[in-house]
């Protein structure tokens, strides 16, 4: 399968290792992967602020970059959620509609499309706190939201991580409470955002986690900022890095 690799702007700028891990993992599973050069951003930062006008050109550009791919995979629940449900500021041409449908988040691609295939053997002998983002849990339904009373409970990221030797997931007091990043919310509502991040990090710390693992670096950029300021003995890692066995820096 030829895959168009979608690397969100903040991963490109701050976490190249997450992009590399995603690329290598898909290749090791036997796929041909191309990363379109002109890609920048999905338009979410402007659209989430309500500014459709400012996001329309970026959204159209995103769709144009990926028009040649039947499958597009990106390691971010938040961006994929935006593309699938909210990328409507630009004209909805058949091409844009097709691209929006073709975009898959890495975890759902591995779990649903590839049916949780055997992954290259990998170890991560650590206690891990799992932080599935709100976009992944309540938006993309990668995990049963804690609010829902119906059975069965499920978690796609946990299913994938079961293949990792030595990895132990710690329980949480509030399993899917928002970390408080929320895009521009993290700056415009700094006090609330930071307090939510502190409470979330403290929950992981209380339960003995060494790492906070997530499919969304946007949450982790915020949580890492908190744990470094607080000097908490915690590290952050993207699930793609765990599944691929690195690179970690």
């Amino acid at each position: 399968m030829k895959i168009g690799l979608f690397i969100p702007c903040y991963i490109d700028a701050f976490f190249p290792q997450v992009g590399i891990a995603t690329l290598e993992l898909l290749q090791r599973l036997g796929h041909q992967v191309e990363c379109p050069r002109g890609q920048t951003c999905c338009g979410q930062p402007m659209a989430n602020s309500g500014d459709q006008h400012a996001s329309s050109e970026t959204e159209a550009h995103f769709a144009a970059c990926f028009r040649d791919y039947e499958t597009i995979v990106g390691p971010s629940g938040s961006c994929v959620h935006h593309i699938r449900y909210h990328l409507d500021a630009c004209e909805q041409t058949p091409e844009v509609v097709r691209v929006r449908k073709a975009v898959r988040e890495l975890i759902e691609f591995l779990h649903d499309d590839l049916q949780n295939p055997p992954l290259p053997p990998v170890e991560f002998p650590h206690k891990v706190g799992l932080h599935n983002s709100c976009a992944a849990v309540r938006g993309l339904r990668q995990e049963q939201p804690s609010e829902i009373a119906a059975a069965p409970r499920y978690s796609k990221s946990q299913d994938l991580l079961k293949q990792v030797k030595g990895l132990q997931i710690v329980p949480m007091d509030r399993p899917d409470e928002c970390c408080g990043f929320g895009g521009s919310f993290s700056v415009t509502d700094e006090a609330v955002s930071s307090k939510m991040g502190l409470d979330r990090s403290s929950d992981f710390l209380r339960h003995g986690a060494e790492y906070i693992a997530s499919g969304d670096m946007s949450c982790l950029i915020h949580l890492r900022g908190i744990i470094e300021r607080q000097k908490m003995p915690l590290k952050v890692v993207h699930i793609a890095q765990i599944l691929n066995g690195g690179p970690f820096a």
Partner: protein
Amino acid sequence: MSLWQSEASRPVEPEAAAARFINDPKHEETHDRLVWGMRTKRDQAASLLPHWEELREVASQVKEHTLTHLDQYLQQFENNALANGVKVHWARDAAEHNNTVLRIFEEHGVKLVIKSKSMLQEECGMTEFLIAHGITVRESDLGERIQQLSKERPSHIVVPSIHKLRTDIAELFAEHLHTDPHNSDPHYLAEAMRNDARPQFLAADAAMTGANFAVAETGGIVVCTNEGNADIGATVPSLLVSSIGIEKLIPRASDLGLFLRLLSRSALGPPMTQYTTHLHRPRPGTELHFVLVDNKRSERLASPDFWHVLKCIRCGACMNTCPVYRRSGGLAYGATYSGPIGIILDPGFDHRKYRELPFHSSLCGSCTEVCPVKIDISNQIYKWRRVIASEGLLPAIKGAGLPVLGDVLAHPAVFHAAEAIGIASIAHLPHKVLDNPLNPWTRHREMPGAPSQTFHAWYEKEGKKHE
């Protein structure tokens, strides 16, 4: 003068108010713990009831059906209420509601009113209006009375003084009820309030309630409380006036089996409220008045994007689960309704004044998942942001950079140049330059480290080899 009028149209500032609340960790952390506790009890109650998710779906459908046939159900309700001997009034807006209530009271020479909790009366600014016209209005719900004595709005639609500590109440009661300011024992404080309230209950010339449900089939209303205070109002004075939002209609008495199952469990967890009062007709020798209020509800109903908000049964579950509300306290919203439901209700009254509220959310979506009538709350918050932005009402800090950012992100070369500048700044500028008061990020967080190269730079060199 009502709170709405007295604060004019100056935009509310929830972020600044929330920051002040957080600055007082004792209050904020207790608030978060108590309100999260309600969410936890709601989860337990929901998991014990078979078919909880199906009940939510049916409740949503019943509400949607009712709202899309609202004219018929309102007429049916009025006809049945009139046949029961109830006096029915219609009010287009808050002013008509308040004037109607005042006229009824003036006709009966009412000087003292005892009222139970009603968010609609709060919305109308009724208490301040009646007081300005010489009528004494006393809240009978404990939390509401605490808020009345504090000269504050309710901070939560179910538990109005949840943002206060026991010690705050002890100080407040010491001032007003002459209790011991150092005794914050809840039994002691509740007893003091009871003793203060009872003579007022007996002396009141009239009582007022809100309504949780208005049943078209019977022409009766249902009022749910945990203190029984609405019942005292309904049974002691010889005049009772109930304010009813027109969205409170449900078709049949049997639909109560559905909504009462959901209401209290969603709110605080218990299967039922302590008191569920059905009011159908005046007691012999007394008068019962219903005031049916629109106050922009028809306008909401006509809005394709926002009419779902009228399904709300005011349980407060969205507030309890909201991580932003729990850290902010309800007063931070500066509006009648706070929390997620407030964010989508308040701008419907005045979207200039409440333009900041839709941004006081991380859009985590938990509100949508707990809502017992399946209002797509987080989606409506997102849509309100679009309304605010499209009218050019985005506040400076939120709107200023967006067109530039949009321009940068639409052009790869410009994006990569900007990226390079940003990364170089983080890597080379002294810590103090980035960590300054003008950069809100660093008030409680470190900046992300600067990588040696971007992903696309790496890909140009290494990644292409594998294609």
